[in-house]
């Protein structure tokens, strides 16, 4: 889901940076001290997740983990994902420096959307909570793939075609991330429920 250098047009790159700067700003402002360690650890997990290759289907895809990062961090997902992507661009040459803004927006916006959509459901009945956790991992990747299609479309490519390719290539990842999120949330609920957002006191 990393867009390389030189693919996108100038305005799209600029818009990506604008969104990312605003998102990172909000994220850092909302980040309180207790959340710093959690943010860092999730940023590290996100950084490593891209190396986990999913060898299913025709395309080369990898884990993204933006769903669980967004679910646990909320707006702090923006700085976490931006940092991890910057390091991926510098160290792995995944994506690129100029496309960093767009790539961050593509992965962080769905993360935050999923936070607002699914975090309130985590403390409902176990079935609802489990479905919400799965849907969170699933939807974050799906929305990311659609945004990827959108970014490429704005730079002169056929939206439907690119989005279809991106979405279909990521279907295995969506399912796997759904299960990862489901497992992690179930685990955290038992072990460290205070890490989950919106815990009724």
């Amino acid at each position, binding site marked *: 889901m990393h867009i390389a250098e*030189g693919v996108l047009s100038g305005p799209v790159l600029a818009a990506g940076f604008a969104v990312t700067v605003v998102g990172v700003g909000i994220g850092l402002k909302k980040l309180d001290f207790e959340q710093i360690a959690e943010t860092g650890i999730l940023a590290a997990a996100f950084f*490593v997740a891209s190396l986990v290759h999913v060898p299913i289907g025709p395309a080369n895809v990898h884990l993204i983990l933006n769903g669980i990062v967004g679910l646990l961090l909320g707006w702090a997902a923006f700085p976490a994902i931006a940092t991890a992507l910057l390091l991926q661009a510098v*160290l792995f040459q995944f994506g690129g420096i100029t496309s960093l803004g767009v790539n961050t927006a593509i992965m962080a916006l769905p993360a935050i959307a999923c936070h607002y959509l699914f975090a309130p459901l985590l403390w409902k009945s176990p079935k609802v909570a489990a479905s919400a956790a799965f849907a969170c991992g699933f939807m974050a990747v799906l929305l990311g793939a659609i945004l990827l299609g959108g970014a490429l479309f704005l730079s002169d490519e056929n939206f439907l075609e690119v989005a279809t390719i991106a979405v279909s290539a990521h279907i295995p990842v969506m399912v796997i991330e759904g299960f990862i999120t489901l497992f992690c949330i179930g685990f955290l609920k038992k072990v460290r429920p205070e890490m989950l957002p919106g815990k009724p006191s």
Partner: protein
Amino acid sequence: MNKRFFLLLLLLFGWGFIHCAPADAHRVNVFAWVEGNTIYTTSKFSGGRVAQKSLIEVYDSRKNLLLSGHTDATGAFSFPIPKIDDLEIVLEAGTGHRGTWKINKNEIEAAQGDQPSEQKSPPSKPEQTRTTLTERSKPQDCLNVSGKSPETTAELEKFIEETISRTLDRKLHPLMVMIAETRNPKPGFREILGGLGYIFGLIGVAAYVHSRRKP
């Protein structure tokens, strides 16, 4: 923090390390070289899978599109030299994946020099120089080579230079291909640990800044 939570994280990172060996897409690499009048390209994802049916575009130094085509099932695509210029070969492997490779004008010219049939450097010229060389090899002439006819000496120098560079090109070519094949950069432990360390360092900085603010 809970021990079990750390164990989970450790497992996740461990999984990442195990899987990073046959890594992934994110990057496509295109490599191109000249042989005679043809430019050959191969395209690969950074994990080693070939980029099939991907668009290749060739641009000159002024960014004009010269030609385009698609890679075959083995990721290969070749085309005749469209122009003697610095060429940029761009691979578009879809959904934002893109790789580039530059071929210098010199490389094209040198490779074309290999071809005797090429109209650019007709074979008559080196042969002429060669006869001058044999003529000049008489001892008395050799003494005043530089003084008598600088033009011929310059030609001779040029001939030697061309021959050497051509031979070197030919000898180095397989080596170059080999280097490019192994050059396929994959993130290693150093990069991964470096990145993780950087992130944990940032946590430290944030904690430090916070502790300074609230004594």
